[in-house]
C-alpha cells in the first residue's frame, strides 16, 4: 500500500487530503469536523450526535427525502458518526458519481435547515436510540465507569448524551452548534479512490471555496485532574451474567507512550481485528476459566482517555478471584520484561491488519482524516515503524506507569434477575 497523498489548504481554511487508488472504480469521500462529545457542556450533552442526525434532514437544494434517495440511487453507501473528538460524514460511490457527494457535502456545510418539526421527530428517534443502548448491560456498565473516571473533563458523558438533555435540547441549541462548528476552517475533506488529483482538486475548489471561512471555534478545555485512587462501582440489572470492566487512565494518542502501550495491548488483549486466543489475558482468564470472554482496547483520543478491559465473568467464579487473576497477569508485565520476539510478533500482526485494511478504499479515506483528528496522517503512516521501535524496556516502563490500581476504575454489572422476576 502506498501512502502518497496530496494535501492542500483551500482559501477558506478547509484542509483537503487526496489519495489516488486505482484498484476498483470506487471513490470514498469523508468530511470531518473538529467537534465531538468532548466539546459539550453539561445541559447540552448529545448535541454533536443530534446535529449529525439533523444533517440528514435536508437543505433547500437537497430536501430530506431527496437527499438520501439521490445517494442510494447511484449505488452509494453513506453514513455518519460522532465520536468523542470529531463528527464525520462519508459517501462511498461508484467513481463516476462522486460529484453528487461533493455537492451535497458542500451544500450541507452551511445550508441545512434544522426545521422545528424535524427536530421534534428526531428527538424521539434519538431517545429510542439511547433506550436501545440501555437494553445492553455492557453499555450501562461502560457509561457508569466513564462517569466515574471523569468528573471535570467532558469525556465524562456518553456520545449519545444524557436522557435529561435529550429531552430539553432545543432547535436553537442544535442550530447554534451547527453554525459554530461547521465552518470550512474547522473541517477536513479526505478522499481516496479512482480519480485524477488535479481534476478532483479543481472540482473541490469550485464547490467548497465559496463557503465562507468562519470564526475558529474554541474547543472546550477542562483537563481532568490525576486520579486519587482506585474507585469501584456496581451496576445492577436484569440477566444472569456478570460483567466486569476495568478502566485505566491512558495517555492521548499523540503521546510518546502511546506506541509502547499499543504493543502492550497486543500482548494483553490481542491485535485489533484478529482472534486473541493466545493473548495473555485470554490465557490467564478464559483458559483458566475465570471468564468466558475477555476483550480490551485503547482508544486514540485528543486528551487522555481510558484503556478498557471487559470481562464476561465465568458463572462459577467470584469476581474477586477473577480480578486477582487479572492483577497477577498485569504484575507479570511489570516485573518481567517481555521478549523481543513478542514485540516482533505484535508488529507482524499489525502489518497483516494493515494489509487487510488496504483492500478497502473506504477504510483508506477514513484513516487519513481519523489520524488528523488527534494527531496527523504521519501518525498513521509511521505507525508500523513506531511499533517496531518499541523495546522490552519501554513495555515494562509503561506497564509500571499506567497499570496502577490508583489509576483505574473497576465496574461490576451484577445481575438481579431473580429478584426482578
Amino acid at each position, binding site marked *: 500500500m502506498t501512502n502518497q497523498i496530496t494535501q492542500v489548504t483551500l482559501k477558506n481554511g478547509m484542509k483537503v487530503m487526496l489519495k489516488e487508488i486505482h*484498484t*476498483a472504480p470506487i471513490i470514498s469521500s469523508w468530511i470531518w469536523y473538529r467537534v465531538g462529545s468532548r466539546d459539550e457542556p453539561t445541559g447540552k450533552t448529545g448535541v454533536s450526535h443530534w446535529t449529525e442526525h439533523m444533517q440528514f434532514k435536508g437543505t433547500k437544494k437537497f430536501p430530506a427525502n431527496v437527499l438520501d434517495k439521490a445517494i442510494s440511487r447511484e449505488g452509494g453507501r453513506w453514513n455518519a458518526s460522532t465520536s468523542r473528538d470529531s463528527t464525520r460524514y462519508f459517501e462511498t460511490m461508484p467513481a463516476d458519481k462522486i460529484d453528487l457527494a461533493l455537492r451535497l457535502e458542500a451544500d450541507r456545510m452551511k445550508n441545512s435547515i434544522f426545521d422545528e418539526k424535524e427536530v421534534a421527530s*428526531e428527538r424521539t428517534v434519538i431517545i429510542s436510540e439511547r433506550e436501545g443502548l440501555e437494553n445492553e448491560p455492557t453499555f450501562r456498565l461502560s457509561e457508569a465507569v466513564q462517569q466515574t473516571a471523569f468528573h471535570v473533563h467532558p469525556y465524562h458523558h456518553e456520545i449519545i448524551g444524557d436522557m435529561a438533555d435529550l429531552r430539553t435540547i432545543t432547535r436553537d441549541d442544535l442550530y447554534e452548534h451547527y453554525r459554530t462548528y461547521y465552518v470550512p476552517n474547522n473541517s477536513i475533506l479526505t478522499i481516496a479512490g479512482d480519480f485524477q488529483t488535479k481534476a478532483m482538486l479543481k472540482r473541490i475548489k469550485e464547490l467548497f471555496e465559496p463557503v465562507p471561512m468562519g470564526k475558529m471555534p474554541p474547543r472546550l478545555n477542562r483537563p481532568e485532574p490525576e486520579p486519587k485512587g482506585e474507585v469501584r462501582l456496581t451496576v445492577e440489572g436484569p440477566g*444472569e451474567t456478570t460483567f466486569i470492566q476495568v478502566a485505566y487512565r491512558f495517555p492521548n494518542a499523540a503521546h510518546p507512550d502511546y506506541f509502547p502501550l499499543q504493543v502492550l495491548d497486543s500482548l494483553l488483549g490481542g491485535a485489533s481485528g*484478529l482472534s486473541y486466543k493466545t493473548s495473555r489475558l485470554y490465557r490467564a482468564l478464559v483458559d483458566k476459566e475465570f471468564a468466558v470472554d475477555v476483550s480490551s482496547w485503547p482508544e486514540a483520543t485528543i486528551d487522555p482517555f481510558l484503556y478498557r478491559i471487559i470481562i464476561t465473568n465465568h458463572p462459577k467464579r467470584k469476581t474477586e478471584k477473577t480480578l486477582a487473576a487479572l492483577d497477577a497477569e498485569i504484575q507479570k508485565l511489570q516485573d518481567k520484561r517481555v521478549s523481543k520476539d513478542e514485540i516482533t510478533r505484535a508488529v507482524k*500482526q499489525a502489518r497483516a491488519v494493515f*494489509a487487510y485494511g488496504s483492500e478497502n478504499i473506504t477504510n483508506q479515506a477514513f484513516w487519513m482524516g481519523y489520524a488528523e483528528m488527534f494527531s496527523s496522517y504521519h501518525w498513521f503512516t509511521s505507525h508500523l515503524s513506531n511499533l517496531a521501535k518499541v523495546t522490552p524496556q519501554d513495555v515494562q516502563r509503561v506497564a509500571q506507569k499506567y497499570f496502577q490500581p490508583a489509576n483505574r476504575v473497576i465496574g461490576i454489572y451484577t445481575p438481579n434477575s431473580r429478584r426482578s422476576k
Partner: protein
Amino acid sequence: MTKRLIRKNGSSLPGPEDIHREVLSNGITVLTRSNFNSPSISMAGYLPAGSIFESDEKLGLADFVSASLMRGTQTKSFDAIYNELESVGAGLGFDSGVHNASFGGRSLVDDLPLVLKLLSESLLTPIFPKHEVEKLRAQILTGLAIREQDTSDMAAMAFDRMLFDGHPYSRPADGYVETIEQITQKDLVEFHRAHYGPRGMVIAIVGAIDPKKAVAAVERVLGGWQVPGQVLPPSLPPHKPIKKTVRHHHVLASKSQSDLVIGMIGPKRNDPEFYAASLGNSVLGQFGMMGRIGESVREKSGLAYHASSSLSAGIGPGTWEVNAGVSPKNLKKAIGLIEQELRKFVKSGVTKDELADSQANYIGRLPLSVESNGGVASALLNIERYKLGMDYYQRYESVVRSVTRDSVLETARKYIDPNRLVISTAGP
C-alpha cells in the same frame, strides 16, 4: 502519470474470464480469483454439516461441533493452533447454520499454506478434548443466558418458532440450555464422523495468488480426504401455511426498549420471483433511509431508531420480515404503521420511480460489494451455492432491470397477506 489497475475489460466484476473453478477427485469444489493489489488472501467455504441433522433433544450439536474443531487436533493443542495463526496475523474460524457448516480465514499470501493446513487438520482430525469441550460448553451457556436477555434475539426466535412451526427452520441453531447440557463428547465425535466429509464441500480463495497455485495448495491438504459413509442432508419437509395473524409477546421486564418482528414466508433464493421480491423489499424497507417503513416509522413518526424490512432467502423457504426497535409505549402504534405499509404494498405495489431507484441502487452498489477479497469470496460462494453461472455478476444488471412493476406486485400478493402475519415482540 496514473497507472490503471482496473481489469482490462473495464469491469471490476468477477466473471468467467477470471474465476477459476475446479473440482477435486474427492468432490471438493475450489473457486479462485486473483487480486494482486494487496498482499493478502481471503478464504471462505462450506460443507453440508449443519443443524438439519440434529434431533430436538440435542439441538445446538452442529454448532457445538463447528465451535470445537479448533479446540485440539491429533497433532496440535488449542493453544498451538491459535499460536500459529495469531503469530502471523492470520485468522481462521468455523460457524454453523441449518444446512451447512461454514469457515472463513485470511492471511498474508505467504501464510496461506499455514492457514490451509490448519483448516485441513481442524476438518479431518479434531479430537474434541474433554476439558476443552467443557470450557466451550460454559461459554455457549453464557451466550444463551445473554441471548435470553436480548429483546431482538428473543423476538426473532419466537418469530421463527411461529412461522416455521414443525419445520427445521423453527429451531435456533445455537440450541437451548437444556439441549446444550445434554450433548456429550461422544455426540460431537459421532456427528463429526457422520457428516464432515469432502462431498458437497466448496472453498473459495481470493487474493494475491495465481489460481492454479491456489488449487494446488488446496489439493495438497484436502485432496486426499475420503469419507466413504458421509451422510448427506435430508430433504426439507414442507412448512405449514399461516392461516390467520398470530402474535406473541415475550416479557423482558426491565428493558427500556422493545423489539418487534412482523413477517411471513418469503421466496427461496432460486425461485423465479426472488428478484421481484428483493427489489420490492428494497422499496418497502431498504432504499434510502430504510424505505417506506423507515419513512413511516422513523422519519415521519419518530418512533424508532431502526425500522426496516429484509428478505432472507436460501436453499429452503425464506423469510420476509420487518424489524424495529421501539419504545415500549409505542409498540402498538409502530405495529399499526407497519401493517398499514404492508396493506399499501400489496394493494398498489411500487411506483415506476421507486422501482427505477432501487434498480439503480442494486446496479450501482455492486462494485462496492466486490471491492475486498472477502467480498469476492462471498460472491464466488454465492455463484456456486445457487448455480447462478460464472457470468452472473456481469449479467446482474440485466437481471435487475428485467423486474417490472407488475412482477413486484404479483410477488408481493403471492407472499404477503396483511391478515396472515406473524407478529413477535419482546420487551417490558
